């Protein structure tokens, strides 16, 4: 593991792995979308609109996964003081925020035909919204602090404070909602989902994960390059 923590080693590995990752991503998306749009049967209650699930649910999964990645990278950065971990956390945040936004937006599009409203203050929607705010706060910290090492230290704390709070927020919001409306409103899938619908969903989840991997590697690469460029400019006294 140690050797891949070296930025140069990491870059060469990333460059070697990226074409494969892109190929896998493309195949998975083709397979998943075929399953989602063609072979999966329309739901007996929801009709064709159920197909929104195949873009919506994986986005929500990824939004949570990416925050976990971000928090783990921040923890690694605190423990091992490795700059690459900070870069990984920093570059994961915008991607995660976009997945989160995608989940909210597609959920809203799905909500209109299903519940008759673009937005319902359901527990899951609310905690997803709060997750989006946590992403925004994390990104804003990187924007607001100019000095890179200080920004990195502060951002680590923001990420970890967020990860401690996510379960508390989730728990409290679930509890809050169950007081106001019955849980039966939000009964999408769960383990009771049928196999012809389940496999495209899982394939789409994998496709999203590989897409994240590819995008994350690319943005880590460009962040490293940007830092090198900045150091060169400072060395030449241009800054």
């Amino acid at each position, binding site marked *: 593991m140690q050797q891949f923590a070296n930025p140069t080693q990491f870059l060469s590995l990333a460059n070697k792995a990226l074409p494969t990752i892109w190929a896998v991503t493309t195949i998975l998306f083709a397979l998943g979308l075929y399953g989602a749009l063609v072979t999966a049967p329309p739901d007996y209650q929801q009709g064709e609109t159920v197909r929104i699930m195949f873009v919506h649910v994986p986005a929500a999964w990824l939004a949570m996964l990416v925050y976990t990645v971000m928090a783990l990278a921040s923890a690694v950065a605190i423990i091992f003081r490795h700059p690459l971990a900070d870069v990984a956390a920093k570059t994961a945040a915008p991607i995660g925020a976009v997945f989160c936004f995608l989940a909210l937006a597609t959920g809203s599009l799905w909500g209109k035909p299903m519940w008759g409203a673009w937005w319902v203050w359901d527990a899951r929607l609310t905690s997803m919204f*709060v997750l989006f*705010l*946590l992403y*925004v*706060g994390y990104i*804003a*910290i990187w924007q*607001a*602090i100019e000095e890179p090492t*200080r920004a990195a*230290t*502060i951002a680590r*704390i*923001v990420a*970890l*404070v*967020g990860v*401690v*709070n996510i379960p*508390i*927020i989730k*728990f*409290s*919001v679930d*509890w*809050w909602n169950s*007081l106001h409306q019955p849980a039966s409103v939000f009964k999408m899938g769960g383990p009771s989902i049928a196999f012809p619908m389940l496999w495209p969903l899982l394939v789409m989840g994998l496709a999203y994960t590989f897409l994240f991997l590819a995008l994350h590697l690319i943005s880590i690469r460009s962040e490293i390059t940007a830092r090198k460029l900045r150091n060169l400019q400072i060395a030449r006294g241009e800054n």
Partner: protein
Amino acid sequence: MRLLWALLRRDLILAARQGGGVGTALGFFLTVLVLLPIGIGPDQVTLQRLAPGMLWITLLLSVLLSADRIFQQDFEDGSLEVMAMAPASLELVVLTKAFAHWLSTSLPLSLAAPFLGILLNLRTETIWPLALSMVLGSLALSLLASIGASLTLNLRRGGLLISILVLPLYVPVLVFGMSATTGNPEMIMPSLLILSAMALASLVLAPIAAAAALRAYLK
């Protein structure tokens, strides 16, 4: 210990004499309280239903607005560096300063809020649950605000950033604060217990996070 005691006294005296302490926060509270019925409409029944929520949200905003005072001035005049070099650990200094913020701002506000609620036609039987839940909740609010204040120390657009960082953390406190005041009577006790659990948890965790952030700025 004597050191922390002196720090607490110093912060309380500063808050009382400098202006911009309880008075300003209370003024802000009153202003929002006047604006809300104007925005919502003077209907007594609606106001009564919304009163606990409006009071809670006004409390959140007032605590948040006064949060930057926890560390900002001490950072600017350099006394925070002296405190960091003191024999007491920085975590305890943070805890003391957050506690001073609670005593000087959040606690008076949460004691006054239920009675100001009378202006909103607040049901009399909710006054006590509201006051208790606000006293407990505001301790958590002040401690969480100290995290936000330390993270945005010395930032030019700190005020807006601190709300984005801290308001998501206020969600659980608001949820259980509301359930103590609007739910059925048997929910009062559990909600108050959970609120005190939150206050105690942030009593332990918030100083660690805030002190780590302060160290990054003081370096």
